[in-house]
């Protein structure tokens, strides 16, 4: 454990019961993440990436182990305390954007700020939308925005409260390649600009290469590799990517 670790995971186990059997998802994950770094968690579907993310964000409780963010132990908090903690410390960007359909882009971004009781919520939200290049789409509802624009709104919403750590779960999963690249560039630009810690869940090796650290989810454990993966010239299957990484 390093002294400057913003996020600490200690022996995280997660088991589910299904059809009378116990299914082991996480098998004692250990992790320290320093403030200001970007970390990619790579792994195939069903490897437990998203489960780990829900535990790190306090959305689900692990079977055993300890999660600490910025010196706060999440395990001891109740649901409402976790919600408030997320509001003040964490930003989350999801694959399916999850904007509130009845609200405009500006209102969506303002929600976490309003929840924090900020009087200038709309001013901050407008600035955040300027940062993601959507100053001309403030009053548009999600249904009137393209997938890429919706994800930009979601990024602005995650960044607006100035969180210490941002979790992004497959942020390009629902976007075409070109738009996906733009979104990834935007996320890293903003991460650098605001010096935020970024944890990126992805199964795209090329996306993962943007990060300072790459971790692989394997058999319910995180395995760290020093070298970055050379992006394939031709599209390859996920199976091949993992095989290559394993080699």
């Amino acid at each position, binding site marked *: 454990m390093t002294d400057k670790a913003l996020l600490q995971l200690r022996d995280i186990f997660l088991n589910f019961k299904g059809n009378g059997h116990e299914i082991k998802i996480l098998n004692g994950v250990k992790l320290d993440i320093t403030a200001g770094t970007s970390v990619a968690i790579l792994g195939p579907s069903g490897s437990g990436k*998203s489960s780990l*993310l*829900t535990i790190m*964000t306090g*959305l*689900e409780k692990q079977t055993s182990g300890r999660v600490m963010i910025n010196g706060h132990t999440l395990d001891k908090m109740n*649901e*409402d*305390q976790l*919600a*408030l*903690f*997320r*509001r*003040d410390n964490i930003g*989350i960007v*999801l694959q*399916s954007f*999850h*904007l*509130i*359909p*009845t*609200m405009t882009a500006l*209102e969506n971004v303002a*929600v*976490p700020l*309003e*929840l*924090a*009781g900020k009087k200038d919520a709309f001013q901050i939200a407008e600035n955040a939308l300027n940062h993601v290049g959507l100053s001309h789409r403030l009053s548009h509802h999600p249904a009137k925005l393209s997938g890429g624009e919706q994800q930009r709104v979601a990024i602005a*919403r995650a960044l607006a409260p100035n969180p210490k750590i941002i979790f992004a*779960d497959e942020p390009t999963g629902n976007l075409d390649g070109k738009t996906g690249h733009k979104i990834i560039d935007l996320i890293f630009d903003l991460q650098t600009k605001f010096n935020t810690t970024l944890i990126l869940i992805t199964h795209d090796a090329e996306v993962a290469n943007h990060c300072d650290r790459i971790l692989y989810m394997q058999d319910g454990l995180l395995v760290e590799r020093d070298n970055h993966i050379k992006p394939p010239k031709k599209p390859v299957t996920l199976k091949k990517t993992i095989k290559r990484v394993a080699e």
Partner: protein
Amino acid sequence: MRNPPLWAAFKFACRESRAALQHFKIFIASLFLGTAIVAGVGSVTSNMSDSFTEDGRIFLGGDIEISQIQQRLTEAERDYLSHSGLISEVATLRSMAHAENDSSLLDLKAVDSLYPLFGKLTLQKQDYSPESLLKHNGIWGILVSDALAVRLKLEKGDHVTLGTLKYQVRGVIKKEPDANNQGFQLAPGAIVALNSLFENSLIQPGSLVRYYNRIKLNQSVDSGKLIKNIKLDYPDHAWRVRDSRHGGGGLQNFVGTMGQFMTLVGLTALLVGGVGVSNAVRAYLEEKTNSIATYKILGATGRTILLTYLGQILIMASFAIVLGLVTGAALPIIAGEFLKDSLPVALNLTVYAKPLLLAGFYSLSIAVIFTLWPLGQAVQIPAARLFRQTITLKKNMRRSFPYIAVILGVIILLLTMIIYMSDYRILTATTLAAAALVFFILMGASRLIQKGAKSLPRPKNPIFRIALSNIYRPGNSTTSIVMSLGLGLILFTSIALIENNILREISKRVDAEAPSFFFIDIQKSQRDSFINYLSARDGVETYRTVPNLRGRITSIKSIEASKAPVKPEGKWILRGDKGISFTSILPNDNIITAGRWWPKDYDGQPQVSISKQMADSMDLDIGDEISVNILGRNFTLPISSIRQFSWENFGINYVMMVDPKTLKSAPYTYVATVKTLPNDESQIYKELYQKFPNVSIIRMKDVLENALDLLGKISGAIDVMAAITILSGILVLAGAIAAGHKARIYDAAVLKVVGAKRIDIIKAYILEFILLGIMTGTIAIGLGSVGAYGVIKFLMKLSWQLPFSIPLLTVSGSILITLAFGMVSIWLALSVKPSQILRNG
């Protein structure tokens, strides 16, 4: 970490409400309907009550009214009263009216030249003048009601005979200002001059005539003080003294009763609507699952989520309630327009706060009761659902407890308020308890249907399989259909069965036991010739004559009658004058339940035999004393026997019968019943009214027609209740089917892709709705029959029969309604292309 501010939840609620209206159509319609009925009924009732109070003296015919049976005021009494104001005298009695070819029983009103002291008597095509009733060329005038004019084919200028006098028709009555003051009218009405009565043979000793003396008070006279003085100065007089507060009379009571009854209708509609409210909120919150999880991810606490969505629901509920209140407040104008000819008062646009506040409170409570549970469940949606859609809500009773506590609290508050505000608290409480019981039975029945469908072996035919599995699959419409239609259909079935059994019983008894005619006001001198005629006439099967007087109970066990403790079922006995008879022989159909009937040649102290109902309701026993004022004379009568008899056989029965010696010298008349062979009925009627012109003849046919008309009106009012409940149910049904519509579209698309023909899909869905219609109808028949059986067998003590037609009608109606709404959903589901659905997931 500061909690999110309240204003944030309020802002979110407002923002989300912008697009929520389309999801809340059924929610709004259900709440609107119930609110509008409760508010409307309250507004109309308050409006009419106010009019009765404001215009009470018009309805009463004076500032105060002193009336008594068979006796006019003496000169001294009239002189005493005339110091207080102007007196107008009116008399009412029943008589026969004979025209050229026909005759009819008549409710006659005889008036003096001052009539009416207040208000206006309006005639068709002409103005009223007292002149029109006076003697012209030796013939008195008569104003006839429209009903009498039609029945006897009378026109202006025609002649009609009443008793021994001929009258000329001088006009047709349109509206009498004091029409409601005369109570129940058995026959069509007419007005003649009071003085004409005294030239006529209609009034004989013992005739059933009531004299009303109405006073238009001098400005300095206070009606309350005057009434007090009258009672002090004339303590022994059997006068009925009323002031203008009682002007509405029976109608005022009727309006109040109907108001209470219709409020229950509105509350039932609200209760059924509650299912729609709950369904709408549940469906809406299901759609909002991701938004709720998103709020949580962004840092919203459970409280903020609760306030956000409760805020939205309250915004929608307020919209529906305000709309309902506005409609309800405007209802007096709409009702006034429709009922202007039947109502004695004009309804106006006055906003009454109390009924509107009550309606608002009832509706808001229903909204809270039916939305809090789904809301409580929604608040518990885990934020992790955004990562895994399969995460389901684990039931957490600890977290659900506050919601259960609040729901129970609101239910208790609502019930307390409804019962407290009702004039018929036991009836209201019973109705509410029955509605709640039925509600829970329906809920249980719908679960049983689903379990039953699930446990049946899977049919080989795919159409049957789809239809059957649609009944119990997740998100099915079974509970909503059974609950929404069930209550209304149960009500319909039980009313129809009760009505059917009563009518069958009446017709059975009329055929077997009921007399063909009742005769009133047979003079002592006429009795022998009356009996001689009947005993000699072929075609007369049976007859019975009994002496008849009128008397009013003034005290019970030495306690003034108005202050004596009397159970509700016996109160009618104390209301006004009641028939009293005397005889030495116990009537055939009477059974002595306590004490002894006096001997045939009894010659001792006065005694009275009373009915069991009177004894039970007034806690009277053998030896107790009652005082009765008969024709101005007070009799103190010890009870010597208690009798039981049945009113339902249409015979002559009396609550009080006095020994033969006590009343023998009183000025009484006879009443009689005669049963004839059906073929001789018309001829005997004609011969009798020609032979005894002063005797009033009531034909059983007419009584029956009146009774059936009254029964029809009552059952019509109850039918309105069932119709409104069914309408409310239909709204909920439409909502339930609409909620399942999305799943149906998806199913239809998938079935089409795997090769199902359009007709097969239609067949499967039709079968599903027919099955649900049959099951809902069957439950309604079962519960409706149990309710009707209880009323007929135990309350009315009549014989019970289950006619085939009513269950058939209930099930057909249930199938038709379910199928009609189902077909709309089927048609819409099939009109969507599979590619459109499957591409969008």
